[in-house]
């Protein structure tokens, strides 16, 4: 999921950085006092989630958790995920500093889009249907992220179909896991504190 330094052409790296700066600006603008604790927690979740390797078959995958960030934070997912990615790059060498823009875009843009699409769904009166929307958000965000990664690779000169296929197929287990995690999270939030989603939306910047 983290594209490393040197894998992309410089045009893609610069383009990703510019778009990410735009996303960050939008995200910081929509970051309110009420949203800030949630942004911090989701940033930390994202930072740690990638260290939890789930051994599946011959390989292992790690969680990303960008769907949940998008659902709760909207555009503010950009700064939250950016901070997580930056720390991962500096501390663990995941990805790299030059491709930080592209990686942020690949992970945060799907989060924002999914957040917009599933916003209504997770507020459904029936918590179970809301949880289904949560599952859709969790796995949809990963699917979109793999698509973004594939596009970034293609723009750097790789063939689309093999690149997309490889990234997409290898992330199917994560899609399933994140779908379940996200559904559980939405279900829990709806049961325990249904006002969370509403209160975070109530104060647009």
């Amino acid at each position, binding site marked *: *999921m*983290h*594209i*490393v330094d*040197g*894998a*992309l052409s410089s045009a893609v790296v610069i383009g990703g950085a510019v778009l990410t700066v735009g996303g960050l600006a939008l995200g910081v603008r929509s*970051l*309110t*006092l009420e949203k*800030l*604790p949630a*942004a*911090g927690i989701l*940033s*930390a979740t994202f*930072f*740690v989630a*990638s*260290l939890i*390797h789930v051994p*599946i*078959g*011959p*390989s*292992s*995958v*790690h969680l990303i958790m960008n769907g949940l960030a998008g659902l709760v934070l909207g555009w503010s997912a950009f700064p939250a995920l950016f*901070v*997580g990615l930056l*720390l*991962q790059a500096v*501390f*663990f*060498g*995941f*990805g790299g500093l030059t491709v930080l823009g592209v990686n942020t875009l690949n992970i945060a843009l799907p989060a924002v889009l999914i957040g917009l699409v599933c916003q209504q769904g997770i507020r459904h009166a029936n918590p*179970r249907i809301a*949880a289904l929307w949560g599952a859709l958000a969790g796995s949809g965000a990963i699917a979109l992220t793999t698509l973004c*990664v594939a596009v*970034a*690779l293609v723009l750097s000169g790789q063939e689309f179909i093999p*690149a997309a296929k*490889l*990234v997409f*197929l*290898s*992330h*199917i*287990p994560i899609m*399933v*896991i994140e*779908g*379940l995690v996200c559904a559980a999270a939405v*279900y829990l939030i709806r049961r325990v504190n249904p006002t969370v989603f509403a209160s975070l939306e109530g104060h647009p910047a």
Partner: protein
Amino acid sequence: MKRLFSTSIVALLVLAGSASSALAHKVIASGYAAGDKIEGEVGFSNGDPAINTTISITAPDGRTLGEVQTNAEGLFTFTPTEAVPHIFRGDLGAGHVAEFRMEVSELPRALQGGTAGAAPAPTASTASGPAVTASPDAAALQAMIAQAVRDEMRPLKHEIAAYKEHNSLQTILGGIGYILGLVGISFYWLAHQRLKKQPPQ
């Protein structure tokens, strides 16, 4: 809900079988001189080797020096012919690129000695190099010792590589600390802004 959960688990297990590609974030690649060859290793940080990956070798000026394939253990050997820095690059797919550079000083010793720019005539080294060409027995012994040392070192190298990839709890806690700090600073800033907008009565 329960049924949904159990069907999801089944689906997960089925899908798990179909996922074959290694999914580590980091690619590890390294090389070292072994006799008159360069031995290298390419793999993922979780220990999976990069199998049948094409490694292209280029000079700093962009010339292609050669191309090799890794074997089932992610190992490759390359026989360098020029005393220039070698850049090894392998594309493992899905945004994983392994690249490392070997300076002239890291190349096999036989290569460093003679060539300074132009390729040497094969006779030149035998004529002018009494230090290089000792008796064949000594050369064979040296090669054997080098081989033995390499074999002994290999597990150690693996261990060091694995150790470097190890993420300690301190690092993780440090990262979380940074996030907490950033949240604190943002809190301060946002609260400050809000106070400026609505001064306390």
